[in-house]
C-alpha cells in the first residue's frame, strides 16, 4: 500500500447538491448491477448446461484434427484446427507476403554500433517501425481496440473530473480488459510477422542463417518471451501515459484558475525541477532490461539443451557437470537481477520522496499563500474592533476550508498523475530496452544479405570454381554483436569467441568445380573435418558459394534433397515422419495412398513399423522411440517418398547394416534419383560413378576421379547380363543363403 493522503474528507465536505447527485448515481449503479448479479447465475447455469450437453468430439475426430493441422483456403490463407478443451477451434491465418517484408525492410536499418537503449529519437524510430507492423492499417482490429481504449481512458478522466470518485471500477475493468486484449492482439500480430519472417522458405532460410551470418542466438527467446513482454509493456505504457498526461493538463488548468499566475508559474517550476532531478538519478533501466532478457534467454537455452540431449548427457553421467553449467548461467542472471533491484532502492526512494511528499508540501505552500495573505488583511479589519468579529472568523474559516478543499482535491490528483508519469518514465526506459532487443531481431532478419540463389538447371548439378568455407558474420552484424558482448561483464572467453569467429574464415575446399548430370552418381570422401558436409551445405544452398564461383542446380522441391547426418524426427504422427517436410494436407492433395507409403517402408526394411507402433496416426516422441538405425532408414524413406532428381546423402546410413544399405542405394537408383553421397565407407563406392576426394591438408585441394572406365562399365553391362542369368537360379541361392545365415549365427554354439 502506498501511503495515501486521506481523501474521504473531500467527499464528506462536498456540497449537498453534488452529494445528492452522487447518491443518485450510486443507487442507479446499484440498481443496474443488482440486475446483473441476479441474472448472472442464471446465464451461467444455462451456459454450463449448454457446455455439458454439447457433444464432446470423439477420439477419432481429435486425431484427425491433430493430423490435419490446417486447411488451405482458396484465398491463400490457412485455417488452423486447434484442439482446445475437448473441441476444435478454428483460427484463420494469412501468411505475410514477401512484398510486405521487402517494403518493411526499409524501416529496419541496422542499429549502429554502440547504440544504448534510451529515450531518444532512435527509440522513437524503432518503436514506430515496430508499430507499423502491429498496426498495418487504420481499420485493422488492433487500431479499433486502441481507439476504444483511448476513448474509455478519456471518458474516465472526464468522469472523474465531473463526479469525483464515481469513475468506478466498471470503467476501470473495461479499460483493463481492453488493455489486455490489445496486448494479446499486438502480440499475435507481431509473432505471426516474426514467425513468417524467421521461418522463411528457401532460399531465404533465415532461421538457419541468422545464427551464422547475423550473429544472433536464442531466437526463440526473442519470439516467445520478448515479444510478450514488449507488448505488455507497450499496452501498459500507453494507458499509463495517456491518462496522467490528460489529468495533468486538466487539473493544472483548473488549479491555475484558483492559484493565479504566480502559483501556476511555481507549479510549472515544480514540474520542471522534479523532472530534471529524476532524469539525473534514473539509472539506465533500458539497458538493464535488455541484458536481463538476454541472460534469461541464455539460461533458458541451457535448460532446453539438457532436455534435448538428455540421452547423451545421461550416458556420460554428465548431470553434475550440466548442473554446474546451468547454475552458473542462473547465478549470472540472478546477480544481474539483484543488482537491478539494488539500484532501484535509491531511485525509488528519491522518486517517492519527490512526488509524494515534496509535491504535497509544495502544494500546501501554494494553497497557503492566498490563505495567509487574506489573513493579514482580516487581522487589519479585526483591529478596528468589529463586534461581530467572532462570526466573521467562523466565516473566514469556512471560506478557507472551501478553498482548501477544492484546491486540495486537485492537488491530490495532480500528485497522483505526476507520480504515475514518473513511474511511466521507468517503464518507458524498460520498454526502450525491449524495443531495442526486438528491433535488433527484426532488423537482423530483414537485413540478412539475400542469398545467392543457385541458377536453375533442370538436369544437372554443377559447381564452378567455388570456394567452400564457413560463412562469416556480416561486418555490420559483427559490430553489433561484439557490442552487446562487451555490454556485460562476461568472461573474456566470450569476446574472444566472437573474435575467433571473425578470423576463422578458413576456406575448406578451394576452387571446387564439377558437373553432375542425371544418372551420374557422385561420392565425396575425405577424412574427418575436411569439409565434406560443407560441400553438401553449399549444394543445398545453406551456405553461400564463396570465391566468385557459382552453383547451378535444379530448383523446386523435387530438385535437390539433402539427408543430413543427424536424422531429424518431426513432432507428429508416423505418417508425418515419412512425408516430412510435406504436411498432411499436402499429402492428401498429392493423392498418394497409404499403400504407397507401405511400399516405401518395405524398401527401407521398416515395414513392421506401423504394426509395431499402432498405425499411421500414432503420435509419439519419435526421436526416442526409434533406434538410431531406424531413424536413418526413415530419413531414406523420405527420399523415396519425395523422389527428387538429386539426393545428397551425408553419412546418413552410418548406423544401417551394410546389406540394407546396399539395398536402399539400389532402390534409390532404380527410382531415377541421382545420388551424391558423403561417406567414408569404401563399400559404397560401387554405387557411384564419380569420386571426389578432399585432401584435408589445409590447402583445400581436391581430386575428382571417375570410378570405373568405359571398359569397366562394359564389364558392368556384361555383369548385368550374367546377373540376370543368375536370377533364374535365385531360389537355389536363397536356400543356400539361409543355410549360411544359420551357420553364421549358430555355428559357434
Amino acid at each position, binding site marked *: *500500500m502506498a*501511503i*495515501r*493522503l486521506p481523501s*474521504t474528507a473531500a467527499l464528506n465536505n462536498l456540497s449537498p447538491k453534488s452529494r445528492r447527485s452522487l447518491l443518485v448515481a*450510486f443507487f442507479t449503479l446499484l440498481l443496474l*448491477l443488482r440486475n446483473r448479479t441476479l441474472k*448472472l*447465475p442464471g446465464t*451461467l447455469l444455462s451456459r454450463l448446461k449448454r457446455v455439458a450437453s454439447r457433444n464432446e468430439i470423439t477420439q477419432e475426430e481429435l486425431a484427425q484434427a491433430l493430423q490435419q493441422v*490446417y486447411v488451405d483456403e482458396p484465398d491463400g490463407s490457412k485455417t*488452423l484446427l*486447434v484442439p482446445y478443451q475437448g473441441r476444435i477451434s478454428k*483460427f484463420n*491465418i494469412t501468411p505475410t507476403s514477401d512484398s510486405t517484408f521487402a517494403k518493411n525492410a526499409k524501416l529496419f536499418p541496422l542499429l549502429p554500433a554502440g547504440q544504448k537503449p534510451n529515450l531518444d529519437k532512435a527509440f522513437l524510430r524503432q518503436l514506430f517501425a515496430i508499430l507499423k507492423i502491429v498496426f498495418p492499417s487504420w481499420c485493422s482490429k488492433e487500431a479499433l481496440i486502441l481507439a476504444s481504449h483511448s476513448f474509455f481512458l478519456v471518458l474516465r478522466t472526464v468522469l472523474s473530473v465531473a463526479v469525483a470518485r464515481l469513475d468506478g*471500477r466498471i470503467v476501470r475493468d473495461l479499460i483493463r480488459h481492453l488493455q*489486455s486484449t490489445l496486448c*494479446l492482439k499486438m502480440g499475435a500480430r507481431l509473432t505471426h510477422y516474426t*514467425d513468417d519472417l524467421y*521461418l522463411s522458405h528457401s532460399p531465404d532460410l533465415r532461421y538457419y542463417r541468422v545464427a551464422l551470418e547475423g550473429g544472433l542466438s536464442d531466437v526463440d527467446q526473442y519470439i*516467445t518471451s520478448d515479444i510478450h513482454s514488449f507488448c505488455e509493456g507497450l499496452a501498459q505504457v500507453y494507458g499509463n501515459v495517456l491518462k496522467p498526461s490528460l489529468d495533468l493538463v486538466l487539473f493544472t488548468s483548473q488549479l491555475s484558475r484558483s492559484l493565479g499566475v504566480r502559483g501556476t508559474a511555481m507549479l510549472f517550476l515544480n514540474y520542471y525541477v522534479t523532472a530534471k532531478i529524476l532524469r539525473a538519478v534514473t539509472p539506465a533501466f533500458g539497458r538493464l532490461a535488455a541484458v536481463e532478457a538476454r541472460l534469461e534467454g541464455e539460461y533458458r537455452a541451457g*535448460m*532446453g539443451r*539438457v532436455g534435448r540431449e*538428455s*540421452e547423451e*548427457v545421461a*550416458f556420460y553421467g554428465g*548431470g553434475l557437470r550440466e548442473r554446474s553449467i546451468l547454475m552458473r548461467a542462473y547465478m549470472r542472471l*540472478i546477480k544481474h537481477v*539483484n543488482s537491478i*533491484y539494488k539500484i*532501484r*532502492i535509491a531511485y525509488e526512494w528519491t522518486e517517492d520522496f519527490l512526488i509524494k*511528499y*515534496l509535491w*504535497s*508540501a509544495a502544494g*500546501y505552500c501554494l494553497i497557503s499563500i492566498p*490563505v495567509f495573505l487574506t489573513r493579514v488583511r482580516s487581522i487589519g479589519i479585526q483591529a478596528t474592533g468589529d463586534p461581530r468579529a467572532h462570526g466573521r472568523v467562523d466565516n473566514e*474559516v469556512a471560506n478557507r476550508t472551501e478553498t482548501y478543499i477544492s484546491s*486540495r482535491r486537485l492537488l491530490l490528483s495532480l500528485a497522483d498523475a505526476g507520480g504515475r508519469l514518473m513511474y511511466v518514465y521507468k517503464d518507458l526506459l524498460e520498454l526502450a530496452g525491449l524495443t531495442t532487443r526486438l528491433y535488433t531481431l527484426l532488423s537482423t532478419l530483414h537485413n540478412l544479405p539475400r542469398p545467392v540463389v543457385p541458377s536453375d538447371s533442370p538436369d544437372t548439378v554443377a559447381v564452378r570454381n567455388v570456394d567452400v568455407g564457413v560463412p562469416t558474420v556480416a561486418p555490420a552484424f559483427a559490430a553489433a554483436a561484439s557490442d552487446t558482448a562487451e555490454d556485460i561483464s562476461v568472461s573474456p572467453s566470450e569476446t574472444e*569467441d566472437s573474435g*575467433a569467429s571473425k578470423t*576463422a574464415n578458413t576456406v575448406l575446399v578451394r576452387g571446387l568445380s564439377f558437373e553432375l548430370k542425371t544418372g551420374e552418381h557422385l561420392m565425396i570422401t575425405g*577424412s*574427418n573435418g575436411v569439409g565434406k558436409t560443407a560441400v553438401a551445405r553449399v549444394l543445398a544452398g545453406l551456405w553461400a558459394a564463396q570465391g566468385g564461383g557459382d552453383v547451378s542446380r535444379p530448383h523446386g522441391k523435387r530438385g535437390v534433397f539433402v539427408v543430413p*547426418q543427424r536424422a531429424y524426427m518431426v513432432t507428429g504422427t508416423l505418417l508425418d515422419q515419412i512425408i516430412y517436410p510435406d504436411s498432411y494436407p499436402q499429402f492428401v492433395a498429392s493423392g498418394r495412398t497409404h499403400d504407397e507409403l507401405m511400399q516405401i517402408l518395405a524398401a527401407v526394411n521398416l515395414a513392421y513399423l506401423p504394426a*509395431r507402433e*499402432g498405425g499411421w496416426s500414432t503420435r509419439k516422441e519419435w526421436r*526416442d*522411440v*526409434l*533406434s538410431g*538405425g531406424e531413424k536413418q532408414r526413415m530419413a531414406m524413406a523420405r527420399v523415396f517418398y519425395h523422389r527428387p532428381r538429386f539426393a545428397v546423402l551425408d553419412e546418413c546410413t552410418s*548406423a544401417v547394416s551394410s546389406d540394407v544399405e546396399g539395398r536402399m542405394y539400389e532402390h534409390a537408383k532404380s527410382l531415377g534419383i541421382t545420388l551424391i553421397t558423403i561417406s*567414408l565407407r569404401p563399400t559404397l563406392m560401387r554405387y557411384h560413378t564419380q569420386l571426389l576426394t578432399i585432401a584435408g591438408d589445409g590447402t583445400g585441394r581436391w581430386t575428382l576421379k571417375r570410378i570405373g572406365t568405359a571398359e569397366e562399365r562394359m564389364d558392368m553391362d556384361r555383369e548385368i547380363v550374367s546377373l540376370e542369368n543368375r536370377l533364374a537360379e535365385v531360389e537355389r541361392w536363397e536356400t*543356400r543363403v539361409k543355410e*549360411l545365415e544359420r551357420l553364421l549365427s549358430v555355428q*559357434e554354439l
Partner: protein
Amino acid sequence: MAVQSTLRPSKERITQLVQAYARHRPIVQRVLTAGFVVYCITSTYRGLAARPASSSSKRRGKGKDDGGSAKPRVAVTRSPSSASHPLQVDAVFYQRLSRILRIVIPSLRSKEALLLFMHSSLLIFRTVISLYVAALDGKIVASLVRAQPVSFLLNILRWLLVAIPATWTNSWLSYVQNKLALAYRTRLTQEVMRQYLGDEHDPSDLKVFYKLANLDDRIKNPDQMITHDIQRFSTHLAAIYANVAKPVLDVILYNYQLSQNVGAEGLVILTVLVQASAALLRALTPPFGQYTATTAQLAGNLRHTHSRTEKMLAEREFAAKMGHEHRVLRKRWWHGCAEEGIVKWLWGSFGLCICAIPVFFKLPGVAALDMGGRTEDAFGRVMYSYKDLSELAGYTSRVALLLETMEDVRKSKFDKALVSSASIEENAKILKGRGVVELSEEIQFENVPIVTPNGDILVKSLSFYVKPGQHLLIVGPNGCGKSSLFRILGGLWPVYGGTVRKPPADDKEDMETRGITDDDLLEILALVQMEHIVEREGGWDVAREWRDALSGGDQQKIAWARLFYHKPKVRDLSCPPDMEGMMMDHATRLGITLLTVSHRPSLWKYHSMILQYDGQGGYVFTKLDAEKRLAFQQRKRRST
C-alpha cells in the same frame, strides 16, 4: 452518515421487546460472541481438516500469531478460499504449498526466514508510519485552516522529515519483496536442479532429467517449468504475503472495532451477509488457478515447438495459447463485474446498514463511526487477494507437479502410455516386476528382460557376461534392443527383472586433482588424430557451440578422447568412426573393456565375445571366432 432517524416503533410491544433486549444485552452479546468464535473455529477446522495435522503452513501460523485475541476471524475471511474446486485454493493447495514452503524456507534461521521477518516488520512499520502521516496531514490542514503560519511551517517541516523514513520504508519494502522472490527462486531452482541433474552427495546417479523426458508422460517440457514457472511462482509467493497479510490484519482490526462500536449482533449479521455473498462470488469465480496452469503449459508447448522450428505446429500452439488467453480475458472481465457488484456496492451497503443500527435503535453505549465503509474495504481487498491466491495455486500446482513427478521417477514409478501388447498377461507380468542392480567387477546380465519404456518387450530374458579384458561385440538388425541394452546398463532405463551386475560408476575428480596437464590432453587428442583442432579453434579455453563447430566425425573422435581421458573400467560404444582399430588397441592397452555395437566386419578381430540378436526376441551369446565368421560373411556376400 448522519441520517435522521424517522422510524419510530409505534406499538408498545415493540418498545417493550427492545427494552427487554437492551436489558439483557450483555448476555446476548456474550452468547453471540461465543457462538461466533465457535463457528469460526469449526469452519477453520473443516477447511484444514483434509490437511495432514503436522503440516501447518508457516504463513498461516504467523497470521494467527499476529491476530492475538481476534484470531478466529482470520478463518472467516479466509474460509472462502478453502472451497474445493478442481485446482483451486483448497486443502490440496495448502498441502502442496506447505511442501514447497519447506523447501524455500528450510529453517527459521535461514536467510529466507530473515527476509520474511524483515518484510513483516517493514509492513508493520509502514502501517504505523502511514497512520502518523494521516494524522500529520490533518494537523497541517488544521493549521492551514486556522491560519497559523508558524505551526503550519513547523508541520510542513515535520512532513518533509517524516517523508524520509516513509519513503525509505517503501523502497526497502519493494526491495525486500523482490529479494524474497529471488531467494525463493534460488532455493527452489537449486533443489529442483539437484533432483533433476543429480547431487554430489548422492552417490546413486538417478539421471532424472533423462527419465523425466523419456520414461514418463506427465511432464512435456521440464525446462519451461524450471525456468519460467518457478520464477512466476516465487514472484507470486513473495507478493501474496503482502497482499493477504495486510487486508487480513485490517479485517481483524475493523471487526474488533466494529464489535466494540455496534455490538456482536452487527458483527454476526455482517458475517452472515458477507459469507453469503462470498459464497455467491465463489460460485461465480472461474477456476483462475486452472487457467494459470494451462497458460503456463501452453506457453511451454509454444516454446518447445519454436525451438524445433516447426512452423505450422508453432502456429497452432500459438493459436491455442491465443484462444485460451482470450477466453480467460473474457471470463476475467465478467468476473470483475460480478466481483465489483458484490464487493463494492453490496458490501458497502451492508456496512452502511450495520452502522445505521445504533442510529435507528439508540442502543446504549454505542457510538456510530464510519467503520462499515472501512470494513467493507478491507473485506473487498481480501476478496481481491483471493484471485491472487488462486493464481498462486495455478503455479503451485505446476511446481508441485514437477516435484512430485521427480519424486516418483526417483522411486522408479513411471506413468507412460504403453503399447497395446503390454496388456497381454504374460507381458504385463514382466512389466510389473523389478530387478536388482548389484555392483561387481564384471558385467553380468541374468535373465534380464529388455523392455522399452512404452512397454514393448524386445527380449524376454537376456543373460550374458563380460569379464574384464574380454571385449564384447553386439550385432543384430536395427531396432532389436542393442542400444536398449546400453540404456539398461547405463542406468537410464529401469531393470524389470533378473539381476544386473556392473562395476561402480567411475568417480569424477577435477582435472587438477588428477594431475592431468594440457600436454596429456594433447596426447590424447593426438591419439584420435585431432591435435590440430586446438590450434584451429584458438586454444583450450575457447567456449563455443561445439555442436555446430565440429563435424560429425570430429564429434565422434572427441567422444573417444573422453573415453581415454576418463579410463573407465567398462565402456559401451555405439558405431565408432574410422581408425577405430588403432583406438581400440589403445583402449585395450589402457585396460578398458569395450562393448561395441557395429556392423563393420573390420572390427570383429578386436573382440572375443559376441552377442547376436535375431530380431525376433531371441539371441545368441558365444565366443567370437572372427576369421571363421569373416569367411562365412564373404561367402554370403558372394552368394547374394
